[in-house]
């Protein structure tokens, strides 16, 4: 799939050992090869790679007293003894687990009916060190000749991942994909004005190493770093706020991934289907098929084909995200949203096999609206604040509250961007109860052009009002 030749067969080998175990069971395996370049102000500090992680997770689902005991064990030992030990451990913990579903339907087939989004960078797949070196040279070049600008810290990482999956229902499939992580501290310093240095901290997640936009991005990032040197905290209170896609990426997926899922529905914390959760102009989709999106894949981590899901249509909740297990409990088919993540911070290396699947989002998408270009949204705001970056939005999945320090933004005065702002906090609810203020309920303008970044594909939004904690006398809450 995706044009990448997957040479790994880990899941199939493990599945051979599991065939004598009672059904249902599934196995998800990855072989991840990472290459990294780390650099500082004087150039390259560290070359890493290959960092090879090959492992799998075995899940067994045992019906017991009208519930399902889920057992899971991940391991890097795929020897017959290692698999037997993992299976034994999974059986053991399943005895002490109970999930409120009577049975579970696992996907079948070999994935041939799945979509095939472009998620593999051929250059990384065939020669990751070479591709990485070429990209890093282009990155350095993009910053050359910019007075007072330097890279004080950064890294570029590539991962090639070979995924294989099998289960007791007959699923046997796999695919390959690539991922890229960029972290960069762009520093502005020096000059006659004596202002302290400023920094713009970039983190970006992508599927490919595309150097084409680097010159423009370097110019933008350098400008933000320079503007941060002179910025002051914005005034506090209720303001019209303009949020570009990069800021929305830091807020939406982590805030909504739980709330709009079967996991929240099971615990009676999800919005009711048919209830108003946003302004009538807001439509929100989760699209696992977008080309080059970080969250796209042919199949979810259980083997169900990916698709696009409409979570909110014109402000009304329409669908939630389900994996096989939550779908079974809530009498809803899986939406292809069974994904795995980290586990207590114990393993890294970009692995998914360390934990059992649960419902999650892929790429949250808001279709472009009639708000026009960014300049038109700024003009519509008239007086307010453009937020370029929050320190960390610290989104809270249970409440959908978020809040973070404004690292760099701009005052909007008379419909134009004015002086830079830095400091103070922006925060609020992303999704509130019907008829209560929230980010989604207070959207008054939606930009024309969507931008794919990380786990979102969204346009710039004008939200009116949002609360800013700024540098001024105390304002009591209403």
């Amino acid at each position, binding site marked *: 799939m995706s044009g990448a030749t997957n040479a790994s067969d880990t899941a199939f080998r493990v599945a051979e050992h599991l065939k004598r175990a009672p059904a249902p069971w599934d196995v998800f395996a990855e072989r991840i090869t990472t290459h990294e370049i780390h650099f500082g102000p004087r150039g390259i500090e560290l070359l890493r790679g290959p960092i090879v992680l090959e492992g799998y997770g075995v899940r067994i689902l045992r019906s017991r007293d009208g519930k399902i005991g889920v057992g899971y064990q991940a391991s890097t030992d795929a020897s017959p003894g290692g698999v037997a030990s993992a299976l034994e451990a999974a059986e053991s913990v399943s005895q002490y687990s109970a999930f409120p579903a009577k049975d579970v339907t696992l996907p079948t087939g070999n994935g041939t009916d799945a979509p095939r989004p472009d998620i593999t960078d051929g250059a990384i797949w065939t020669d990751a060190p070479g591709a990485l070196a070429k990209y890093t040279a282009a990155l350095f070049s993009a910053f050359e000749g910019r007075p007072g600008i330097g890279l004080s810290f950064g890294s570029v990482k590539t991962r090639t991942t070979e995924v294989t999956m099998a289960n007791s229902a007959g699923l046997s499939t796999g695919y390959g994909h690539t991922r890229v992580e960029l972290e960069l501290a762009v*520093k502005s310093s020096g000059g006659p004005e004596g202002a302290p240095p400023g920094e713009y901290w970039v983190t970006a997640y992508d599927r490919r190493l595309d150097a084409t936009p680097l010159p423009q991005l370097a110019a933008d990032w350098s400008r933000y770093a320079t503007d941060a040197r002179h910025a002051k905290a914005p005034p506090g209170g209720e303001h019209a706020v303009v949020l570009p896609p990069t800021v929305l990426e830091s807020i939406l997926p982590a805030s909504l991934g739980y709330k709009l899922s079967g996991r929240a529905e099971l615990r009676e914390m999800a919005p009711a289907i048919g209830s108003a959760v946003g302004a009538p102009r807001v439509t929100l989709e989760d699209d696992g098929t977008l080309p080059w999106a970080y969250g796209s894949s042919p199949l979810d981590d259980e083997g169900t084909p990916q698709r696009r899901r409409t979570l909110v249509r014109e402000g009304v909740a329409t669908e939630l995200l389900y994996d096989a297990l939550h779908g079974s409990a809530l009498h809803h088919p899986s939406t292809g949203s069974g994904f795995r993540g980290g586990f207590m911070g114990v393993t890294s290396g970009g692995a998914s096999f360390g934990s059992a699947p649960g419902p999650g989002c892929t790429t949250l998408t808001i279709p472009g609206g009639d708000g026009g270009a960014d300049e038109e949204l700024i003009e519509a705001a008239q007086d307010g604040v453009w937020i370029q970056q929050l320190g960390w939005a610290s989104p809270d999945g249970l409440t959908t509250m978020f809040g973070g320090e404004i690292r760099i933004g701009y005052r909007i005065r008379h419909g134009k961007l004015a002086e830079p702002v830095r400091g103070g906090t922006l925060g609020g609810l992303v999704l509130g109860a019907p008829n209560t203020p929230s980010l989604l309920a207070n959207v008054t303008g939606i930009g024309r052009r969507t931008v794919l970044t990380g786990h979102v594909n969204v346009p710039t939004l004008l939200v009116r009002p949002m609360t800013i904690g700024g540098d001024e006398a105390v304002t009591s*809450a209403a």
Partner: protein
Amino acid sequence: MLNLRDHESELDRALGRVGQRTKFAEVLAQGSLGVIANVDSKSHRASALPRVAGAVLRAWAGDRWVEAAASGFDRASLNGAVASLEHELAASTAPGNPPGESSTTVGSQVQRPPRPMSEMSVEQVVELAKDYYRWTSAVPGIKNTQSSVGWWDDERLYLNTAGARCHHVAHRVRGGVAAIAFENGKSEYDYTSVGGLGGAELLDAFTEKHAQEVARSAIELLNAPAPPTGTMNVLLDNGTTGTFAHESFGHGTEADQFVRDRSYLKPLLGDQLGPESLTIWDDGSVPGGWGSVAFDDEGHPGEKTMLIDRGRFVGALHDRDSAAALGAKATGNTRRSDFLSRAYVRMTNICIEPGDWSMDELVRETGDGVVLEHWTSGMEDPLGGQMQLKVRRGHRIENGKITGPVTSMALSGSVLGFLKDIRGIGKLDQRMEIETGFCGKGHGDYLPTGDGGPFLLSRAVVGPA
């Protein structure tokens, strides 16, 4: 325990091969295992931690470090990593010694907690989590409770070509609850947890009373107003003070940022940054401290480093590279999340020493402002020196008295301004409690770090969060 020493000869062989091509090489083998139990209103589950283990090899290539790693200790996996390093080292045109001093430490530290969690059955761990759940959800008005009890053993074996040989196993345990209240479409929660390096004895500190307090707090938050916003007097609770020490101040003392000219604190070494009552240290040797390390991942023993002594900024945290660049010594703070991650200068347990103010005196001195309680997160800004702390709840202080509760909020402002504005540091009636957190360097590489402190009064910007 994974018994990494069983693989010592293979690791020695791999190190020996790389060592023939460079002036210095090292290998870190690492693995972990453990169990976690989660209980909520709809389900309960026990999960075994991934059995993931492997080794990372690092070598000096004359002008930079090169690394390769593999999961597993079999000869084929290690040979792949070795061959990659041999290739890199063969291409090196600048042979020479690496910066700084290479550790020659030989030692082993394998804890034996009074009541090892590894000797508890999975069923017992689940039952403990069910107790937490039951205690919390028994409070009327609680819609859901998420309780968890977990432990993991992290074993590391470090060898280098200078002769260092360090083996250690850290047993970490943590338990806690999040109580969730839900009414008319609005949800609020509060949480509490205990833990540290050790065994089941650490979980004894979690009682039914704690569970009920956190449940009542969640219910109270449902009808609590948002906090006031703006610049005001702020009284930080113990955990929030510790988080301030870590996120806002500590990251700026990681001297790899000094070498990169990426710390606002670098030019201030030796300056008075706060009142004489302010002392901040990092200590990787605190017995039972969540972030303690017997040896760091360059083979240096964990130790105490004074950062602020009576208000004066006196020290920073170093790995071998930053120590060499700045004429200092390595401080036992070089840490990797695991064998898949690179080494950085990291904190271990960072704490602010208690002062001599009583709680009544602190509240009275605050006059009007807020108390920030139950930290949830923070974010560093090592170059800019700004801070961001987020808490789950708090209280207003009006006319020198604590009044009603307020919902979650974020704190921001200048760290140096905050230090200068410190007006009171509270007493501690008991031993410093090291909180159990996870820290990233930038946006990744998470590892366990501890922090602690007393109540602390200063001034900052408060906003919604």
